[in-house]
């Protein structure tokens, strides 16, 4: 089993393929109006419907915000894009996870969600691979939990997630598997779309300007590895700035300016 350790993730400059679902934060129709829980968004319930982050009041006369966020009108839906919140796993998400516990039949992974994720050993090896004699020995048929250790950082894909059960995860697939170096930082999950930017523009800019590898995932975690610690420090500061200013306009330009300035101040190029 040793020799099939995920070659796919080794030192790849990974591009996030999550650009398309991210557009909401950058959308033109977003107002910059900050709303808070309980705030009335509209009393015109004939023309508008309650969308994400909103609710109708009891008498169905008002649409009300449930979150602190930005008010957004999308066709006839009124949404509130949250400014703070937590990560809810959805099937298909790729997330950075930390192995916190394991036993002979499964790993437990912290994926920064309300429940820990479950990784079964059968989901850590590629299937349909014939080995030796057909059928094989009975012992080689059941994969064990020797592959990863507690404390390992894995990039995993969510196979299934619902409200009641712990999310099930896999490490088989492109970019998935164990990270051997670099560092992981966390930001508030709703700010992640801004770190990616529209069609991945922000992330591309960050990579180019700081000569770093970055992997951003929906659960608020960002894996990064730079040429040296000075670049990594700068990148982390830039990401923290994006997190703080996620709800402002002109962010990509400002961050690029910020990095250029800081490079001069810190004497790195």
């Amino acid at each position: 089993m040793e020799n099939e350790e995920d070659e796919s993730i080794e030192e790849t400059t990974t591009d996030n393929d999550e650009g398309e679902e991210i557009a909401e934060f950058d959308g033109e129709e977003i107002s910059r109006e900050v709303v808070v829980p309980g705030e009335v968004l509209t009393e015109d319930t004939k023309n508008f419907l309650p969308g994400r982050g909103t609710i109708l009041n009891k008498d169905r006369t008002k649409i009300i915000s449930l979150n602190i966020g930005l008010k957004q009108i999308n066709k006839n839906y009124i949404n509130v894009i949250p400014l703070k919140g937590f990560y809810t796993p959805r099937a298909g998400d790729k997330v950075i996870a930390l192995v916190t516990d394991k036993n002979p039949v499964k790993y437990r992974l912290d994926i920064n969600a309300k429940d820990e994720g479950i990784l079964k050993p059968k989901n850590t090896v590629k299937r349909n691979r014939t080995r030796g004699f057909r059928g094989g020995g009975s012992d080689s048929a059941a994969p064990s939990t020797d592959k990863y250790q507690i404390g390992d950082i894995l990039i995993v894909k969510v196979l299934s997630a619902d409200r009641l059960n712990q999310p099930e995860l896999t490490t088989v697939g492109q970019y998935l598997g164990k990270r051997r170096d670099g560092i992981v930082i966390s930001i508030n999950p709703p700010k992640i779309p801004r770190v990616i930017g529209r069609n991945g523009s922000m992330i591309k800019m960050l990579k180019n300007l700081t000569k770093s590898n970055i992997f951003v995932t929906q659960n608020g975690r960002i894996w990064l590895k730079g040429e040296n610690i000075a670049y990594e420090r700068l990148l982390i500061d830039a990401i923290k700035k994006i997190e703080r200013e996620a709800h402002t306009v002109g962010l990509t330009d400002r961050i690029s300016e910020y990095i250029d300035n800081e490079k001069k101040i810190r004497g790195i190029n």
Partner: protein
Amino acid sequence: MPLIIKDEYPEKLFREDGKRLDGRDKHELRPIKMEVGVLKNADGSAYLEWGNNKIFCAVYGPRDVHPHYLAKPDKGILRVFYRMATFSVFDRKRPAPGRREKEISMVLGDCLEPLLFLELYPGNSFEVFINVMDADGGTRCACVTAAALALADAGVPMRSLVTAVAVGKIDGELVTDLSGIEDKAGDADLPCAITWFNEEISLLQFDGSMDLKEFDEVLTLAKNALIKIHEIQLNTLKNKYIAIQEEYSGGENKK
């Protein structure tokens, strides 16, 4: 050996000029200062200074329930822990949580729970830790107000905020926002809270004596005060973000 300096109650709670001992008019609130996001480790947090009350509140969750048997299979649970620092009161409080703290924790939990959609988080918990570092009357009201801010700051979906204030009667007069000494030496004390999504009372305690007419009147006083405090809550939450937007409003013009 007993302490000789006592927390003595004054004979009168109004000054000669008709103002209260701290210089307030009958229906004037003490100065209120609110901040959100003050504690880095918490998912959401708030700091509230209300007169001499100083309160920190942190929200963690949704997360696993410890101990596990408390978890409910059909909905999440909200747990509130109200604690006072030993030095927050006149005589040093014993460090372990007492009966009063447990009762107030429960009352605060009951007041906050209607705001949340706990059915969305089966098997999980939200934990609200409230620590009173300095107390001067009306702490449970201040705690409700701070906890609502911290929950909103955490991004927990909620129907609305909740706001609380204590009203009461001192020296035969109805007043708003009782201070510590007015609470102890006054005739009646009525802490109450309003959940704004239905504008109904979700916390109500009363100690003292009042006739029906006064009681009716005092609730109106409370409502007026609550509207003002709610305004401060809303502004506190929004200003955290609006201030950053304004820093860069120049960028908007450029675009």
